């Protein structure tokens, strides 16, 4: 027998090389959500109040993450920034999830011209290097939170539109969809009530994996000076500010917000992974 034939039934599971999403990520995401809601209330200092007498102090019990060049408490600023960063990321993901799912569902269900128009639009977006596109959009829309949200959501749109398109298309001729048509159920209801609930777990996993990326994208835009303006505490801005002092030895201004950013990206990535295992309908 050929190698193909004999290997087929004995195919073994390969060891997974990625970090397993586990309960740790759920706790971390919970912590981030807690900080987003209550952070500004529990921080020891006003995150925007300057105090030049204590500028550029290294971490100490009074200032856990040290202070910046104008004497603001880095710990308070890092914690206070959580709300804005998560809001931008969640807002952008929800926006692209909503629009992307609608577009993808229309394209996947209707096919024909609808599909062609949607697919070409998506391909056009995909044609750009994504971060460069985000920079262009954010620059065009001016300095506001919304411009970051919109720029991030536009570059994320293809992810949701493509997934939804192929998942809806795959189920279009499924027996249960035909059965719904036989009962005189309209197209919109079939897609919304009969097909999308089956696609939802896949999208939910993508969305949670995508939040980490969106946080990074938003921070990247502010790092470049687009979108949100100082002195608003935001991780990207904090990292950008800190970068100026990295080589003069005041590492804490750069390292702590940077670490927070990495932690957030990892937490949501792990959470998405955990969700994937949970939402598999065959496990219920």
């Amino acid at each position, binding site marked *: 027998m050929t190698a193909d034939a*004999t290997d087929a039934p004995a195919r073994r599971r390969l060891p997974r090389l990625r970090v397993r999403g586990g309960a740790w990520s759920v706790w971390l995401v919970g912590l981030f959500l807690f900080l987003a809601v209550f952070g500004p209330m529990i921080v020891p200092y006003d995150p925007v109040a300057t105090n030049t007498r204590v500028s550029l102090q290294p971490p100490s019990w009074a200032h856990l993450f040290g202070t910046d060049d104008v004497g603001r408490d880095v710990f308070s600023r890092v914690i206070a920034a959580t709300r804005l960063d998560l809001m931008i990321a969640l807002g952008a993901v929800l926006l692209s999830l909503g629009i992307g799912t609608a577009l993808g569902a229309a394209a996947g269900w209707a096919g024909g011209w609808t599909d062609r128009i949607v697919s070409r639009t998506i391909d056009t977006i995909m044609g750009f290097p994504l971060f460069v596109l985000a920079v262009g959009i954010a620059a065009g829309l001016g300095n506001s939170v919304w411009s970051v949200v919109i720029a991030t959501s536009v570059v994320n749109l293809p992810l949701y539109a493509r997934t939804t398109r192929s998942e809806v298309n795959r189920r279009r001729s499924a027996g249960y969809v035909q059965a719904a048509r036989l009962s005189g159920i309209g197209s919109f209801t079939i897609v919304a009530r009969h097909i999308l609930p089956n696609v939802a777990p896949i999208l939910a996993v993508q969305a949670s994996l995508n939040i980490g990326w969106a946080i990074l994208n938003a921070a990247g835009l502010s790092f470049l000076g687009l979108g949100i303006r100082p002195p608003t505490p935001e991780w990207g801005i904090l990292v950008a500010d800190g970068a100026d002092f990295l080589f003069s030895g005041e590492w804490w201004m750069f390292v702590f917000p940077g670490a927070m950013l990495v932690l957030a990206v990892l937490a949501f990535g792990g959470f998405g992974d955990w969700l994937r295992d949970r939402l598999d309908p065959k496990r219920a």
Partner: protein
Amino acid sequence: MNALTAVLDQPSPPPDTSPLLAVSGLSISFGGRIVPTVQDVSFAIARGETLALVGESGSGKSIIAHTVAGILADAARVNATSISFDGIELAVDRRAVEALRGRRIGMVFQNARAALSPTLAVGTQIGDVIARHRKLRGRALREAAVEALAAVRIPDPERRAKAYPHELSGGMCQRVMLALAMAGEPDLLIADEPTTGLDNTTQAAILDLLAAEAKRRLMSTLFITHDLGLARDYADRVAVLHAGQLVEEGSALTVFDAPRHPYSARLVRAVPARAATVADLGGIPGKFPDLSGTVPACRFADRCERAVERCRTEVPRLDPVPPDGRVACWRPLV
């Protein structure tokens, strides 16, 4: 040629009556399960004989076939008194079968297209296998591959040798897989539901071909199927499995026409070809036993209208049935 003539002129040796494959006391367990998935199964296949392993899904028929072929997943724990292939003991050293597989033991299974490499022309795939067994290269090898395709009655074999699996129909792919299995000139062919998913005319053509090849080469066949009707048509003997237990064994016609085990009788009643009207059809009552829990000694007891207390506490003995069958039942049909 003289040597060959000399061989042919010699008086033929007495026919070898020892079975080609003899399995005895085979049990297979999977982790986390209290009861073994396959329990104490024994059967033998004579040279040139076709034995059908028949049962519903979950009966363990494919697991047994995979064990014989030595391609069972590592997670399974195999216990056997003996698995003897032409005198070679496979139960002790599981690697012994590696040397046999592809040469003396060939295998075909369902969904042949998935078993063929999608990126190689089928002629090349067959050529690769032939090259392992015969010292052929280049043009001679290509010709041998075309011959192998012609042998499994693929029309226009020269052109088809250049085709990729996706360009061939399901029936053609199954023929290619058969040609691959035959290239090693096996003594035993394991055919695991080889025609599931194929049309009836294609099924008949493939099984006819299998039978003809087996007869021509005096090859033994282990034929796995859930359809006792097919087993009756194409096998010499059948072994009926229920939930991992061998319940009956005998010549195909005897088991089909006069089943002794209530389960075999139920399987016979489910064959549409045998029923005059739909009222003659019978399914199998009750639920398939859940092997992740505890089960009665005779695993069919809970589905059997003839069951008595003894069936639940004592595993039925395999008793001989004249002329050459065996049945494992405390209250067999007469």
